[in-house]
């Protein structure tokens, strides 16, 4: 291991080291902590210029209540769920299928198709913006959640195919040979061999896709317009324009937007880290 592990019996040294790292974490997250602190501060205190002192009065409930009652954040939050959940499900289904075929049924051109999925995933959003927007307008889907769902499923399928293809390719080949020897059709192989085994990969992929789609801002502003369909990211930015001096409300809304991906991350941290490293490293 590198750096050299601090010996188990050097208790004091270990405690000091941990304390030092904790201090670095606090500095690292200081910008976020400041916003959290502001989100529980009252408006009067902000007016009086108390930005950094300990809050004299905690307005946690008032501020978050104001976010729910006086702004459209709750609507945006619901929109984000309506966009994100179907997108994740769609991506999981499509990429299991493409990953299965590209890893287990090699044919002429299968490597090229795989390379297109992988390469397309790195393209900047702007290169497809105009035609995608035009397509959604012509389909009558512009400014509906379907426009975002369709786009996100299409785009995330690139990364997800890379991910599932590598995972299924790493499964023991004997399983597939046995399935073939018993005369299982591709559909039966998918159902009885692949699906039960890819569950951990699907969990990792689900949390990654959830985070990517939830956090999207660009497509939210390109493909939607009205408050009735806008997701939280676009909504938050609008809110910031409307509530310029009410920093406590904006901060509370910011924390509210950040919460779902952060909570998901802490709940499924192992999957998230494993997914991200595998996606990037295994290529």
């Amino acid at each position: 291991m590198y750096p050299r592990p601090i010996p188990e019996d050097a208790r004091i040294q270990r405690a000091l080291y941990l304390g030092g790292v904790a201090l670095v974490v606090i500095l690292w997250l200081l910008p976020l902590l400041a916003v959290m602190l502001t989100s529980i501060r009252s408006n009067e205190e902000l007016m009086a210029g108390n930005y950094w002192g300990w809050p004299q009065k905690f307005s946690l409930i008032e501020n978050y209540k104001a976010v729910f009652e006086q702004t459209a954040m709750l609507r945006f939050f619901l929109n984000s769920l309506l966009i994100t959940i179907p997108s994740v499900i769609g991506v999981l289904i499509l990429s299991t299928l493409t990953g299965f075929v590209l890893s287990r049924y090699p044919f002429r051109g299968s490597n090229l198709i795989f390379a297109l999925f992988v390469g397309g995933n790195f393209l900047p959003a702007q290169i497809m913006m105009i035609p995608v927007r035009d397509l959604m307008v012509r389909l009558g889907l512009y400014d509906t959640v379907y426009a975002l769902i369709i786009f996100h499923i299409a785009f995330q399928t690139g990364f997800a195919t890379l991910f599932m293809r590598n995972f299924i390719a790493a499964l023991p080949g004997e399983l597939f040979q046995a399935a073939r020897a018993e005369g299982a059709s591709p559909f039966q192989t998918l159902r009885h061999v692949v699906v039960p085994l890819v569950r951990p990969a699907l969990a990792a992929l689900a949390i990654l896709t959830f985070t990517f789609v939830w956090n999207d801002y660009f497509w939210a502003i390109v493909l939607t317009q009205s408050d009735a369909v806008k997701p939280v990211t676009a909504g938050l930015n609008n809110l910031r324009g409307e509530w310029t001096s009410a920093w406590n409300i904006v901060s509370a809304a910011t924390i509210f937007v950040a919460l779902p991906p952060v909570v998901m991350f802490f709940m499924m941290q192992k999957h998230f880290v494993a997914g991200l490293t595998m996606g990037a490293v295994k290529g």
Partner: protein
Amino acid sequence: MSRLWRRNRHWVTPALFLLPGLILFGTVILAASIETVWISLHDWDGIGAKTWVGLANYIELADDPQFYVSLKNNVIWLLIFMLAPPIGLALALIVNQQIRGMRILKSLFFVPLVLATVTVGVVFGWVYDPNFGLLQLLFGAFGGTAPALLSDETFVTFAVAAAGLWPQIAFCMILFLAGLNSLNDDLIAAGRVDGARGWRMLRHVVLPQLSQVGFIAIAVTVIGALRSFDMIAVMTSGGPYGSCTVLAYQMYQESIFSYRFGYGAAIATVLFVIMIVFIAWYLNGLIKAERSNA
């Protein structure tokens, strides 16, 4: 019929499995990207008919001062983002100790990565606020006043890119931690026997083993820097006076705000060409690595 099916199902079913994903990705992502190149040869307001103008959009672009501002800012983003891999490595080295409680600290380091870029933008807007931001707190402690970075034409791009660095460092840190976990213990032990310690150990024994992960961290960071859009849109809308646009943002502005879709498409195409070089370099590196592993 059923004989025909049985004889062909070994390839028909897989083809049917592949098609939905392939068609969706092929039309919405790949064909759309190519269509943009086609649109860039036209004059188009986004609604009416397209008028063929050949290379006129590109010729105009070559004379557009804003284009060079964007290009310059893209380079600044790239240079600032190059700090992410070394800082990420340093943080990974710091937390790579097995002490009770280290796991939770490690995950706290990753938090910026799961935040939406809009969130990061709002958070750093707060940091940079000249009246009460963290930066002012820092300057105030030394009796100074913080510069209003986001309204300063010289510093604005540096400030926004530095904010974008925050999640990028966390990403590099995750990659390097994975790399540190797969180090070859025998080589490290041999290094220790030979008296290599600290910096020399890092330089001669550890870093060579991290070369693949390092390559990925750098490549992902380069691509991330060139894709930057959200932070600029949220923090400054490209201002002040268009001084902090990048190609991605300028393209959006020309298309959505000025209805010059052909011109926007031309900017997107230039960005596309720049990116393709890096994407090809990255994929080529990955393929090489996979071959040498196999």
